[in-house]
């Protein structure tokens, strides 16, 4: 049979099977995740929320509760200005009157503590916080060429 002689046919069939398995597993975990979020989405949890203005002032709001990070910030009484990017979420431009500055290359970014500060990586209103998580907003100096943000000290 000619198609059996062509090894690429077999490889293509195996890859097709692999693609189906991967897609099924992806779909399964996506549904599990959305189901979990739907079940827990309405439950605010306490976190350790901090803000660092990069001028030596760091204030902690330990025990602040929230569902998302943005929710916790609002419940902590912060004044937050943000631009919405639709499904991608909010981009924070100003916190408590301190606005990002292109001239001095300083922007707001949030970091979470996991054996050191790790950059948040998603919009604050899309990030569902976990119990007793430590999160800090830092007015970071950002390298204008690489867009790399300075870690909080």
């Amino acid at each position, binding site marked *: *049979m000619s198609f*059996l002689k062509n090894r690429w046919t077999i490889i293509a*069939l*195996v890859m*097709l*099977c692999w693609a189906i*398995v991967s897609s*099924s597993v992806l779909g*399964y975990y*996506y549904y599990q995740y959305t189901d979990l979020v739907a079940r827990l989405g309405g439950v605010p949890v306490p976190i350790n929320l901090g803000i660092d203005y990069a001028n030596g002032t760091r204030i902690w709001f330990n025990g602040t509760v929230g569902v998302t990070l943005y929710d916790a910030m609002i419940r902590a009484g912060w004044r937050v200005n943000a631009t919405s990017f639709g499904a991608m979420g909010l981009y924070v431009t100003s916190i408590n009157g301190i606005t990002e500055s292109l001239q001095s290359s300083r922007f707001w970014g949030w970091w979470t503590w996991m054996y050191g500060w790790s950059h948040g990586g998603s919009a604050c209103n899309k990030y569902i916080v976990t119990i007793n998580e430590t999160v800090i907003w830092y007015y970071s100096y950002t390298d204008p060429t690489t867009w790399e943000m300075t870690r909080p000290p």
Partner: protein
Amino acid sequence: MNSFKIAMIATLAALSIATNYALIGVHQVKLMDFIVFVGGFCFGALAGVSIGILSWLIYGTINPYGFVPQVWLATMLAESIYGIVGGFLGKTLASTSFDGQRFKLCVFFATMGFLPTVLYDLITNVAWASSSNMPIVAAIFFGAQFTVLHEVANAAIFGICSVPMITALEKLSGGWRYVVPKK
């Protein structure tokens, strides 16, 4: 259909039902699909479809997990896919010798175990979702852990067992496969 074929259909259907009951506690891992496929491969699509329907007629009605008519009809219909695929491949590979290309055939049969199972699971999940008023897409993805296990198990069974089983049945039928003499 000659008496030998009818006897083989009855024997394979009995084997399929017996293995299904024997493996009742092992979820998603069954030899039924493989037996239906091999039946179709060696004795034609009609024989394969008959084995599948006969198996489900008994296993579907006398089942410790219960009986849902819609799901039962869907499984019976979907089980025929293995017989049809087996029949088609049996006809296509009728005069092909397995010697010297066993590994390639094992991989090929594994994929042929996997792909019809995807269709089988899709049909049965849609039937189950319809009978339990569940959204179809949600039913498909929520049941993905079971379908993936079923697909992978079938790929392994088809890949490992097809060549030996077909060879054995070929010897039993006097060196003929799908009423075509082997080269």
